[in-house]
């Protein structure tokens, strides 16, 4: 208590002795002002260029309201719903197979781009840039390319998921590997293990729960994105959806959207449960 009082009394002294700490930095204020001003100016420029006029927004919202009215009630014809359900299952299996193979293929690349496993700097740099390239191109673009290469159908979607998620998962995995404790690996090395054995017994047990957890997370995200891969003709529910929107069958669009919502909730819930158990188990 006494020290606090003394501090308060000497605040004036401190301010006199260290004026630079208490001085208002005009230069910083000015720079902040310029930064905010530029950000705002770019926003306004964008709004003007993209024609965000109130009239257009209002008309669009009116159209949207009309669409919503068309969507009620959603289509409940069993044959139609069954067709959509089949497409949903197709979407789920695309995401499942794609994520599984992406995770398997990403593991070696992740190890090769982790600093504590692969010491050869230039090689690491090459692998990392390669992964960046896979990630930098959107999944949809990969799907377009694969549709051209292997034809229409879910296989193109699966390949697109595998290719783009190798990039994502390799990055996530390599971060997990770089963050792990190196002592178990040293222990294996001390008892005569070679580099491969060090990785297998020293690092892999530590990072496996994190690998599985990020793979599940990517699986959730793939269930979402697989629904749209198909707008470009790679099978699944998205194909049905874009056809319905183009054909203005809005009540069927509503059914599909509800099915997608329910599926995504279910998958998120299940995978959240599994992830929770994995993390608690460790």
């Amino acid at each position, binding site marked *: 208590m006494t020290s606090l009082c003394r501090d308060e009394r000497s605040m004036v002294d401190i301010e006199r002795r260290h004026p630079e700490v208490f001085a208002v930095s005009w230069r910083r204020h000015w720079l902040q002002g310029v930064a905010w001003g530029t950000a705002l100016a770019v926003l306004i420029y964008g709004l003007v260029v*993209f024609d965000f006029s109130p009239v257009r927004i209002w008309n669009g919202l009116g159209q949207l309201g009309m669409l919503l009215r068309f969507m009620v009630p959603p289509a409940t014809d069993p044959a139609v719903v069954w067709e959509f359900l089949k497409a949903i299952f197709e979407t789920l299996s695309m995401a499942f*197979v794609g994520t599984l193979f992406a995770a398997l293929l990403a593991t070696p690349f992740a190890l090769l781009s982790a600093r504590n496993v692969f010491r050869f700097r230039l090689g690491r740099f090459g692998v990392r840039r390669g992964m960046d*390239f896979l990630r930098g191109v959107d999944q949809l*673009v990969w799907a377009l390319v694969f549709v*051209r290469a292997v034809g229409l159908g*879910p296989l193109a979607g699966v390949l697109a998921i595998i290719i783009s998620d190798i990039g994502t998962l390799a990055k996530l995995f390599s971060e997990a590997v770089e963050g792990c404790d190196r002592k178990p690996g040293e222990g294996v090395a001390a008892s005569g293990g070679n580099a491969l054995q060090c990785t297998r017994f020293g690092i892999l047990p530590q990072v496996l729960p994190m690998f599985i957890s990020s793979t599940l997370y990517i699986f959730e995200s793939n269930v979402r994105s697989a629904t749209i891969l198909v707008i470009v003709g790679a*099978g699944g529910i998205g194909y049905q959806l874009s056809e319905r929107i183009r054909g203005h069958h809005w009540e069927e669009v509503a059914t599909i959207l509800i099915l997608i919502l329910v599926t995504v909730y279910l998958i998120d819930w299940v995978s959240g449960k599994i992830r929770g158990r994995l993390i608690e188990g460790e």
Partner: protein
Amino acid sequence: MMSSQHDHPGSTAWQDFCAQQQRARVEKYRVWIVGGGVFLALFLTSAYLSHFSPGRIAEGLPKVHEYIVKILPEIGVTTFRDDMAYWFYAFPDWMLLLAETLLMAYVATLLGTLGAIVLGFVAARNVGPSRGLTILARRLLEIARTVPDLVYALIFVFAFGLGPLAGILAIAVHSMGASGKLFSEAIENIDLKPLDGLKAAGANWMQGMRFAVFPLVAPSLVSYSLWRFEINVRTATVMGIVGAGGIGQELITAIRMLYYEDVSALILLIVITVSLTDMLCERIRHGFIGKENLS
């Protein structure tokens, strides 16, 4: 501590221990076998449904290779300049489209973040104004982020007409949902004492949020928004596929019309743009985090 006569084989304690170990081992094997069986069944069904078979892969891979060879340009050492000029013949137009794409992502991120901030405060369970509003905001955010942005784009293209406007709104709605969830989680994790202090001094809800909660979450807010911007740049590059503006329009035309070399040129430009924005955002983010750590 057990006495030594309990340890020797043959004592009841030892037998109990062995039986227990045996049970644990059987249980472990059962989990592995059942889990593995379910996993295998799921995998086989999925592989069947998604046409994923070794034969089809073997058939497809050479075609992928063929396609990649086709889209790569011919560049000679002696004719390098001419070849590059030929490959990037529409360079100025493409740069304009890329600028449009970036601007779309920027506007959409700002609009989405604005919505996310408002809904994030309402949706946070610990500081939300009322229970009903909190539940409503959470459901709204869930719907906004569960429907993929391209689906919004498809619908908005119909409502607002072709062009960037539909794309921006679609990205904004989706990122509002995604960031709103993160914001509300960040708010749920804060220390509530400053808010209690302000409430005791007679502040209303708005003032409490502005002066007690907002300063605590502002750094994570900036960091999430920058991260969201990176994602939105990627998304904006494909909005053109459904006619919602940006460079995607050019890309899908090149792919559909079989302008092979354009495809590789456009993909290269997109990758460079995306990587540059990622690097820039990381710089800014580190700058912010560094400053926070210093103070």
